């Protein structure tokens, strides 16, 4: 009896002593917060958070590898307490939600019947999941069964639909889906994701420089869900009203319907939903991530600057825009004339972006009104340059400084800014790009008698948009092709009296594949004009450099643009980023918007203290191999909705908008022409 008591106590004591010594000897420093956080977690070791048990989750939260709301079981009070322990706002945890990236369920089912199998993972294991499309949704609903929160249901079209209110972002569906169709992401992760080679992308969405998910928003229009359509566009492009008007829609060139029929009029559909929001004056709410307290200076409030500021704001940061001109908008305002993009529309759109909580300072020019050092002193964590390309090239011919000679952007900016410009009666515009056409059409509306467009090659080589060329032909602009300006003829009062040019003929193709014009000897001809506008291209104006600050360290290319890492938009100074025309040279508005988003992604990485790295397998507007077809089966010819325009007589004497919006019925009809393509599959007309 005594021995047994002694032994039991003794054993307990020995074990206790050994363990207490062991805990001293084998003590490993552990952040005391881990234990505190662990106490606040559910303690169920359910693994719903994606970590092996609650202690691992607590450790991840303390190491900031997981957000305070990682645990899917505890309520908001615990989350805010955990956030308190971590010294961060509870709000920094941005909710994760599940999204379905493929809506090809039904058309896939029609193509392949799997006898007897009833789960996606079984089909994948046995057949590699091969249907017509190797990546698409199989539609057997493994995700539906995996969801413990009843948030996923099989939709009427045979693919899963997520109920965002019920989804807690546990990630079970993402794990269950053998085809990686369901993605659990935060809004900012989705906003800043660049198109990647493994994404479910239609050819149009691969082509769009802003990477808009085109088939998805067209699908929303077809169903009359205009708010969802606008939100889908806004995930990639904040300037949908502007793009809906001025974008030359490179996407339409890759539309699969366009292989057999006329392509879907994608841009008119974008314009339709964008205008729908504006004409109803609704301002659909835009979701932003919780504040991070980081500040970014955006130099230049053009499309790239607005886009970067918009995406940074939605990711929770605080951008401030510094603009040299009196109003925001950059080339959209000062380069694109009123008749293509009314200022009222642009103002409405910019107001919506600024309403997210973006501060703007206008009429301040870097290097004149403030310098780079003061930005850094003001506590900005990063600087983004989107200063555009505002410096017109000169022709380099005699007489270019005579009274009556203008350059393209300078002229358009003066008109856009309502500055008085002495306009002649007969004008020659030199150049074949969009700026030249814009100058011509603006001059016509200012009451000029005769406008010549002087271009050294032929109409086929003109870099301007085809629709713009056609419209200017309708409006009566005279094209002088194969003409190289030789000198400007002046009169006694130093005013322009004519333009002497040499006639050209086309020779061998040059590096750009266009046939090089060769002058014809002795063919000097004088065009009788009293005003000349040179619009032969632009480069960025980087005059703020050379003041002895860090900007002087920036590497500049030989085209006078910022030298940036193309996949991240980061310059050689780590906290300086650049995109838009000032990084790429003159390009499309939509290129600048895409560049702004790409830069926002890198700036977000930088502000969160992560290494700024390119996204793996990012497409960067290259096409996924094998997704561009030669022919498409099952397409019936249907008429493309024509662009409604003001009649020429009504438009050439004023600055009224020329292109009009299509009607709702036409929009529904046009959206029905979309084949709803993914990478390989598409709906056939039947």
């Amino acid at each position, binding site marked *: 009896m005594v021995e047994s008591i002694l032994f039991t106590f003794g054993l307990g004591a020995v074990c206790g002593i050994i*363990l207490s010594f062991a805990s001293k000897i084998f003590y490993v420093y552990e952040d005391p917060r881990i234990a505190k956080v662990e106490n606040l977690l559910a303690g169920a*070791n359910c693994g719903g958070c994606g970590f092996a048990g609650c202690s691992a989750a607590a450790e991840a939260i303390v190491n900031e590898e997981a957000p305070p709301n990682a645990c899917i079981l505890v309520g908001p009070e615990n989350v805010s307490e955990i956030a308190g322990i971590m010294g961060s706002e509870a709000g920094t945890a941005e909710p994760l939600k599940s999204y379905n990236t493929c809506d090809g369920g039904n058309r896939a089912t029609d193509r392949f019947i799997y006898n007897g199998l009833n789960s996606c993972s079984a089909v994948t294991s*046995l057949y590699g999941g091969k249907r017509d499309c190797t990546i698409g949704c199989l539609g057997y609903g493994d995700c539906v069964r995996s969801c413990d929160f009843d948030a996923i249901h099989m939709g009427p079209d045979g693919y899963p639909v997520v109920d965002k209110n019920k989804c807690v972002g546990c990630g079970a569906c993402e794990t269950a889906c053998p085809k990686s169709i369901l993605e659990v992401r935060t809004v900012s992760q989705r906003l800043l994701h660049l198109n990647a080679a493994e994404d479910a992308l239609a050819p149009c969405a691969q082509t769009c420089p802003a990477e808009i998910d085109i088939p998805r928003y067209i699908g929303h229009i077809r169903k009359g869900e205009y708010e969802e359509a606008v939100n889908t566009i806004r995930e990639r492009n904040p300037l949908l009203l502007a793009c809906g008007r001025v974008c030359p829609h490179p996407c339409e060139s890759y539309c699969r319907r366009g292989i057999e029929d006329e392509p879907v009029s994608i841009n008119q559909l974008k314009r339709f939903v964008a205008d729908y929001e504006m004409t109803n004056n609704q301002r659909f709410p835009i979701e932003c991530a919780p504040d991070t307290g980081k500040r970014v200076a955006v130099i230049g409030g053009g499309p790239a600057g607005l886009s970067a500021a918009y995406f940074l704001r939605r990711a929770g940061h605080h951008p401030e825009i510094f603009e040299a001109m009196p109003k925001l908008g950059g080339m959209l305002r000062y380069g694109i004339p009123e008749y293509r993009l009314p200022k009222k529309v642009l103002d409405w759109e910019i107001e919506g972006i600024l309403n997210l909580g973006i501060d703007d300072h206008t009429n301040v020019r870097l290097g004149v009104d403030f310098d780079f050092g003061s930005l850094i002193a003001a506590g900005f964590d990063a600087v983004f340059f989107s200063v555009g390309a505002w410096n017109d090239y000169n022709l380099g011919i005699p007489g270019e400084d005579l009274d009556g000679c203008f350059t393209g952007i300078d002229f358009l900016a003066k008109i856009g800014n309502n500055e008085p410009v002495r306009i002649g009666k007969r004008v020659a515009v030199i150049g074949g790009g969009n700026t030249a056409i814009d100058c011509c059409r603006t001059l016509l509306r200012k009451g000029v008698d005769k406008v010549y467009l002087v271009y050294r090659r032929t109409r086929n080589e003109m870099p301007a948009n085809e629709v713009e060329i056609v419209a200017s032909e309708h409006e009566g602009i005279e094209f002088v092709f194969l003409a190289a300006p030789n000198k400007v003829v002046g009169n006694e009062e130093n005013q322009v009296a004519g333009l002497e040019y040499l006639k050209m003929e086309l020779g061998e193709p040059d590096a750009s594949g266009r046939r090089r014009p060769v002058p014809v000897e002795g063919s000097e001809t004088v065009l009788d004009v009293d005003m000349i506008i040179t619009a032969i291209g632009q480069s960025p104006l980087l005059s703020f450099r050379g003041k002895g600050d860090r900007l002087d360290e920036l590497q500049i290319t030989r085209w006078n643009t910022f030298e940036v890492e193309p996949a991240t938009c980061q310059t050689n100074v780590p906290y300086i980023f650049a995109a838009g025309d000032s990084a790429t040279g003159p390009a499309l508005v939509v290129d600048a918007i895409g560049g702004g988003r790409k830069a926002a992604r890198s700036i977000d990485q930088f502000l969160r203290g992560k290494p700024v790295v390119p996204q793996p397998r990012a497409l960067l507007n290259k096409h996924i191999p094998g997704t561009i077809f030669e022919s498409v089966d099952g397409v019936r010819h249907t008429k493309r909705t024509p662009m409604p325009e003001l009649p020429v007589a009504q438009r050439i004497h004023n600055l009224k908008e020329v292109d009009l919006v299509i009607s709702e019925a036409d929009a529904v009809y046009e959206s029905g022409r979309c084949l709803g393509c993914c990478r390989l599959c598409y709906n056939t007309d039947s």
Partner: protein
Amino acid sequence: MGYFELFISCIFVNNILLAQFLGNCPFLGTSKKMETAVGMAMAVIFVTVMAGTITWIIYTFILVNYDLVYLRTIAFIVVIASLVQFVEMFLKKSIPALYAGLGIFLPLITTNCAVMGVCVLNIDKEFTFLDSLAASLFYAIGFGLALILFAGLRERILLARVPKPLQDTSIALITAGMISLAFFAFQGMV
């Protein structure tokens, strides 16, 4: 009995899970995924060998000497629980990689009856120290083998059409019964 016979006996004939029906809760609980099954198997092998030898020492040199054999169960429980705690601390400090690998399975073993069963069997069969060391290792390997086989089966079952009432644990129990029957074919080998 030679070590080879012991090996066959412990792993196949008297498999701790399928013939002696010990340690069924981790067998069902951690066999849903191959990854967790492997983790659990490794942790069990590690702890069983440690526990088997230490309990043998305590039994032979303390309990028998002081005539306290009737305290065997309580003594073994305390020893195994303390041992697991100790090993956990030791690994965390000395071999963090192994600690991270075994993860949450280590503390779970405190309540694994297979470990306790092996310790008791070593005593009942009156093994020598080396015998019990070998037997502990082989029993644990047998446990791991059964667990990993079972996990493989359960992963395949996920792909099959199982009637609703039988899904998950029910079908797992039926399967376990059938594997157990299959292992009964080894009876009489040793």
